[in-house]
């Protein structure tokens, strides 16, 4: 069989050294082509991508779909689909599921070149192994970030346009207190309504109004904390608050991906990596967040989930924030966290989060650069 054969060489004969320029493939920065083709490789794993999409988007679609349907069928029996509480719950759910989905995707991105036997082909091209690793980061995030944005946008839209009107007062221990008070304003209002305060507030065994006022003065910080929590839980988050929450969820998902990628590259085991990170997210972190282990508080704080809990925006954790809550998230995101352990300093929280991102990325890149292909 004779065919006309396209020439691979310019002259159609022997390749001649030096007649073509050698591309700078030793550079550590990944090229756009490298990123897009890696994205293609991940994207074409249909089963994995569908699973990731389901974990991130499906809860929002399902919950709001059913609530919208119920409300449309029986408006009197079922209220509007959106509410601050639903928004908060779905955002938290999105962060939890998003972390797990991202970890699974990261583990796949970090291991499939190895398991499919393509890693050695890639190494033989002469391309910098670091560039090969770094290309996986934008390639994977390009799948996750839009999915989270889509799900979160749905959450925001339904909350903004399908929620009951915000209340005109805050229900604090059964008292109807005006909205938008600062701590001094709340203190003034309570002192002006001592009788109501005595009946509603947990001020202890007060025998006269003077004792009630004294109790208010002493406990105003705690009352204000609960006032803020109740106010937030009863109102839709403001636009800037929604933006902060969206960024926080994206950060949670991004961390999941980067840790999955790094751990996957380190172990070369996709399944093991995924299981370990699921266990970290749904077993280890919750336990460490709620239980104070003597002499190990600082160790507990090294878990990224703990740091992320402290960074959790206020609107996502108002109801569970106990006296121990209220970490540095106040400073950054107005967050309060849901921790059962004392919060850590802001610099420590940021260091833990950045440490996990940089540390796992570094470990993964190091392993990829030193691994036998």
């Amino acid at each position, binding site marked *: *069989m004779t*065919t006309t*054969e*396209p020439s*691979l060489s310019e002259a159609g*004969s*022997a*390749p*001649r*050294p030096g007649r*073509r320029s*050698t591309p700078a*493939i*030793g550079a550590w920065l990944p*090229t756009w*082509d*490298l990123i897009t*083709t*890696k994205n*293609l*490789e991940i994207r*074409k*794993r249909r*089963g994995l991508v569908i*699973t990731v999409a*389901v*974990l991130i988007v499906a809860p929002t679609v399902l*919950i709001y779909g*059913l609530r919208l349907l119920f409300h449309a069928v029986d408006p009197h029996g079922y209220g509007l689909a959106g509410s*601050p*509480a*639903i928004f908060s719950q*779905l955002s*938290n*759910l999105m962060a*939890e*599921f998003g972390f*797990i989905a991202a970890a699974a995707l990261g583990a796949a991105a970090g291991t*499939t070149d190895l398991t*499919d*036997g*393509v890693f*050695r*082909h*890639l190494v*033989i*091209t*002469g391309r910098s192994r670091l560039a090969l690793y770094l290309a996986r980061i934008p390639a994977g995030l390009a799948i996750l970030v839009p999915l989270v944005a889509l799900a979160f946008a749905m959450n925001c839209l339904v909350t903004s346009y399908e929620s009951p009107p915000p209340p005109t007062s805050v229900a604090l221990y059964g008292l109807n207190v005006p909205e938008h008070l600062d701590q001094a304003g709340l203190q003034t209002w309570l002192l002006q309504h001592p009788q109501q305060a005595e009946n509603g507030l947990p001020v202890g065994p007060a025998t006269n109004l003077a004792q009630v006022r004294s109790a208010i003065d002493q406990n105003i910080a705690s009352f204000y904390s609960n006032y803020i929590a109740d106010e937030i*839980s009863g109102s839709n988050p403001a636009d800037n608050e929604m933006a902060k929450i969206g960024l926080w969820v994206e950060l949670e998902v991004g961390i999941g991906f980067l840790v999955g990628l790094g751990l996957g590259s380190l172990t070369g085991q996709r399944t093991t990596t995924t299981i370990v990170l*699921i266990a970290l997210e*749904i*077993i280890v*972190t*919750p336990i460490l967040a709620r239980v104070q282990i003597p002499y190990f508080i600082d160790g507990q704080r090294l878990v990224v989930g703990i740091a992320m809990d402290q960074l959790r925006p206020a609107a*996502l954790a108002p*109801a*569970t924030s106990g006296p121990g809550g209220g970490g540095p998230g106040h400073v950054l995101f107005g967050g309060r966290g*849901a921790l059962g352990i004392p919060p850590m300093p802001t610099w420590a929280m940021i260091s833990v989060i950045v440490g996990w991102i940089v540390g796992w990325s570094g470990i993964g890149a190091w392993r990829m650069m030193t691994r*036998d*292909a």
Partner: protein
Amino acid sequence: MNTNELLAAGPVAGAHGQHIGIGLIVLAILVLGSLGYGAVRLNNRRRLNRQVTRPEPPMPMQEPPRPRQEAPSPGPQPPSAGQEPPSPAPAPARRAPVSSQHPNGWAVETHGLNKRFGATVAVDGVELLVPRGSAFGYLGPNGAGKTTLIRTLLGLTRADGGTMSLLGTPVPAERSRALARVGAIVDEPRFHPHLTGRDNLRLLAAARGGDADQRIAPSLARVGLTERAGDKVAAYSMGMRQRLGVAACLLADPELLILDEPMNGLDPAGMHEMRAMIASLAAEGRTVVLSSHLLDEVQRTCDAVAIVDHGRVIRQGSIDELIRGAGAAVVQIDCDEPARAAQLIDEAGIAAGTALTGAGLTVTLPAGASRELVADINRRLVVAGIDVYGLREVQASLEDWFLSVTSRLGEPS
């Protein structure tokens, strides 16, 4: 997280208060997802297996396997410091004389290369010189260290000692620059099974950079995979994967091709196609290093060989020279008393060995023996009264020689 709460707009749950519930939901989703995914994969695999039965497109024949041509031995000793390397083997007549255009005539050069895996020495002080423009066979029994040497050359694993260069570029110091002009298949060619052949090449072309992506279509056409390039690799036969592996090599428009056991898993037709492909690539002036334990393939394809055993290169040079130099020629004697003839020759001590076969007597000549020895044997037999009907000098095959110099016969050379 309780679904009823969500549906009923219940109180806000804490982030970790409902983790057990979340965990159960996640696990349930993962298990169901895995089952569903597994079922889909199984179904796809069955479907793809059916697709495999589709006839493969024929590989374009560039050129029939060329007869092996004589190439001078590059010599087992490396050039001394400060000395120009000996001129490489002149290319066969049908090839462009590429090597003469380069001051450094070696496509692959290693000196004292070592690689250990714990206590096991996989590569033991290897001195290897592969002339540019040659088709070079790298032979050795299984476990001799062939693949390890190739992996070390390509930077897939690190050497423990020694120096090496590819196309005159030292590796690993300038590995990226050297590999930009090298294409290689190591072990069996494996690709992402969920991607098409073309997408796999796109991935590798992106890693190559430069104009490699423009060579995807010509490479696919070259190996005869254009029609199946849109199919997922999972549906490819082993032969098609080998061809895709060659196409991946061609993305670099390589001056040096290193093919590790390219015939593995191929049926006779596939081997024939691959042989033709290798011959055509070598005929273009590309240096082809063919690692194999299939001696016949190497003898038919290559000019020169290196024999590796227990991690060491024990011989290298042109095939003809090596076989002749090893003195592995034998003489087939047709006579009326083969047993007495064998005894006579053994007692005279003029042969390396004798053996009685169905065809008569086979006498192995000692190394460097001249044709006069054959006449001498004939004379001795006639003088002893043995009727000699014929003597035929039989050139030993590469396999005979290979077995004689490797440890496979239990007698290391």
